[in-house]
C-alpha cells in the first residue's frame, strides 16, 4: 500500500526542512573570508565609537545576503513547480514563458538610459527588470490565448518565440552600447546576490511566503490538472480560475526574485525535479518542500560563490549550474528506476 500523504506527514516533513534551512542559513553566515566568532556576534553592535566588527559583518553583510538567497531560491523553485504543473511539461522552468528575457531587456534598457533614481529604494535596473518580467509574461499569455482557448503548445511556442525575440534585442543593444554598460548588464544577467537592506528583504520575503502559501492552497487542484484541463474540469475543478491564480502568483514571485538577484538559472528546473524524485509528485508536498529545498540550495550555492575564488566572487548562477547539474544527474540515475514516467 502506498504511503499516502497525510497532514501529519506534511507538517513533520515541512517542519524538518525548515529546521534544516535555518541551520544552513546560520552556518553559512559564519562562513566567509573573515572569520566571525559567534560569541562576538552575540556581544551586540558595540558602542557608538567602537563598532563590533563581528557583529557588523554577520548582521549587516552576511545575514541580508543569505536571507536574499533563501527567498530567491524559494521563489524560483516553487514557481518552477507551478510552471511544470500548468504546462504539463517536465522541461518547464520559471523562465520558460519569457520572464528571463523580459527582465533582461528591462535591465539593459535601464542601464543604457543611465537613469539615476530609486523607487522605494530600488534601482532602475530592478524596477525595469520587474516590469519587463511581468509585462512579458502577460504578453506571452495574451498571445497564447489568441492561439486557442488555452492551448499549451501555443503558449509554450509563444514563450519560446518571445524569449528568442527579446534575447535578440538584448544582443543588439549590448553590441551598440559602451563596454562599461555591457559589463553591468552581463553581470546582472548572470545572477548575483548583493546585500539588500532589511526592509526590501522583509517585503520580498513576505510576498514570496504569501505567494507560496496561496499556491499551497490550490495545490490539490494542481494535482488534478496534471491530467489536463478537460479531465480536471470534469472532476469538478474550476480550471480557468486555478490556472489564472497559479500563473499570476508564480510569475509574480519569479519577477520579484529576478528583480532582486538577476537571472539565476537551474534552481527552478532541478529543485522541483529533485524533490519530486525523492518525495513523489503530490503538489501539496512538492510545493512547500521545493520552496524550502530551493532556499537551502541557493544559500549553499551563494556561500560557495563567495568563498571559492575569495576574495573575488563568482556569479551565483555559475555555481548553481556547476554544482546543481552533477548533483541532479546523480539523483536522476539513483531514483529514476522507481519513477516510471522517465522511462
Amino acid at each position, binding site marked *: 500500500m502506498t504511503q499516502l500523504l497525510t497532514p501529519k506527514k506534511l507538517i513533520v516533513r515541512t517542519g524538518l526542512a525548515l529546521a534544516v534551512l535555518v541551520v544552513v542559513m546560520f552556518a553559512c553566515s559564519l562562513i566567509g573570508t573573515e572569520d566571525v566568532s559567534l560569541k562576538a556576534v552575540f556581544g551586540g553592535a558595540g558602542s557608538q565609537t567602537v563598532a563590533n566588527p563581528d557583529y557588523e559583518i554577520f548582521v549587516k553583510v552576511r545575514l541580508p545576503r543569505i536571507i536574499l538567497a533563501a527567498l530567491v531560491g524559494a521563489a524560483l523553485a516553487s514557481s518552477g513547480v507551478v510552471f511544470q504543473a500548468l504546462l*504539463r511539461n517536465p522541461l518547464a522552468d520559471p523562465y520558460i514563458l519569457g520572464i528571463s528575457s523580459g527582465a533582461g531587456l528591462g535591465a539593459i534598457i535601464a542601464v543604457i538610459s543611465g537613469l539615476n533614481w530609486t523607487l522605494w529604494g530600488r534601482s532602475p535596473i530592478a524596477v525595469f527588470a520587474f516590469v519587463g518580467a511581468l509585462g512579458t509574461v502577460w504578453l506571452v499569455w495574451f498571445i497564447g490565448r489568441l492561439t486557442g482557448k488555452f492551448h499549451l503548445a501555443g503558449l509554450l511556442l509563444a514563450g519560446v518565440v518571445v524569449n528568442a525575440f527579446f534575447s535578440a534585442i538584448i544582443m543588439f543593444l549590448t553590441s551598440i552600447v559602451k563596454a562599461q554598460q555591457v559589463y553591468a548588464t552581463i553581470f546582472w544577467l548572470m545572477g548575483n546576490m548583493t546585500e539588500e537592506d532589511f526592509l526590501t528583504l522583509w517585503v520580498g520575503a513576505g510576498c514570496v511566503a504569501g505567494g507560496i502559501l496561496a499556491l499551497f492552497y490550490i495545490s490539490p487542484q494542481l494535482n488534478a490538472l496534471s491530467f489536463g484541463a478537460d479531465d480536471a474540469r*470534469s472532476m469538478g475543478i474550476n480550471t480557468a480560475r486555478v490556472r489564472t491564480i497559479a500563473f499570476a502568483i508564480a510569475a509574480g514571485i519569479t519577477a520579484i526574485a529576478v528583480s532582486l538577484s538577476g537571472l539565476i538559472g537551474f534552481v527552478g528546473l532541478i529543485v522541483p525535479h529533485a524533490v*519530486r524524485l525523492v518525495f513523489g509528485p503530490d503538489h501539496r508536498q512538492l510545493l512547500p518542500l521545493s520552496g524550502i529545498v530551493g532556499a537551502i540550495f541557493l544559500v549553499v550555492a551563494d556561500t560557495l560563490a563567495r568563498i571559492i575564488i575569495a576574495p573575488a566572487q563568482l556569479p551565483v548562477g555559475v555555481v548553481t549550474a556547476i554544482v546543481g547539474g552533477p548533483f541532479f544527474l546523480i539523483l536522476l540515475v539513483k531514483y529514476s528506476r522507481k519513477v*516510471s*514516467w522517465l522511462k
Partner: protein
Amino acid sequence: MSGIIEVENLSYGYTPTSTILKDISFEVKPGTFLAIAGPNGVGKSTLLNLMCRTLTPKSNTIRIDAVPIESYSTRALASKVAVVRQEFVPVFGFSVMEVVLMARTPYYGTMGFENEADRRIANEALEATDTVGFASRPLASLSGGERQRVLIARALAQDSPVLLLDEPTNFLDLRHQVGIYDLLKAAQLEKGKTIVVITHDINLANQYCDEVLLLSTDRKFHIGKTQDVFSPEQIKKVFGVEVFAGEVGREKFFIPLGKLAKDSRQISK
C-alpha cells in the same frame, strides 16, 4: 420527460458554418446502459463532450437531472457526470491510489486533504474495478487494460449517477474488453448508474447495452432498444458494410463481411 439525460434539438458545429450534429433529441432514463455507435467522424465524441460540457451546447438543449447543463457549477456538474476519455497523457508519476483520490478533490477540506469518507469512496472504486492490487503503483507503469480500469475507478470515485466513456475498450485485448464491460454492467446493476459508452464494437454493445444511439453520416440518428436498432440492414445502411447476423440462444451476433475475407462467401450464402 423523466430522463436523467435529456437532449433536445441539439445541433453543433465547430465553426459557424459547419454542422456535425444536427437536431438530435433523445433521453436516457436513470439506470440505463446506452451505447453510442456510428462511423468515424459522425460526432460521437462531440456529443459526449457536449454531455459533460467540455464543449458548450446551446442553451437548454441538454439537461442533466432536469436542469440545463449550463446552469451547473463545475463542481455540481462533476457530482452528476463523470467522464472517462480516450486520450490520456500522464506527466508525473502519480500512484493509482493518488489518481483515484483526485476525483475527490472538490470535496477536500481547507487543509487540502481527503477525509475518511473520501478514502472509503476511493477504496470502493478500487474494489469495484479490481485495481486494489496495484493501488501503490505509478499509473504510467500499468498495462493499457489495467490503466483503463483505474481511470474508470477514478470516474466511479466521483460518486456521480452518470458515467460517460469514450471507447473504453480501445486497444485492449479480448479479456480486458470483456472485463471492462462486466465492471460497467456491475456498476449499472448494483449501483444504478446510468452509463453512456461510445463504442465501435457492435457485438459487445449488443450483449451489454440496453439501448443504442446510432449516428449516421447523413446526420440522421436512431435510438432504441439494442435489438431493435442493430439489424443487418441498419448496420449496412450506416456503416456501409455487409454483415452476417447469427443467433446464439437469444443473443444476436454480427460478423462483418469484407469482400476478400476468407469465409465471407460461404457465410453469406
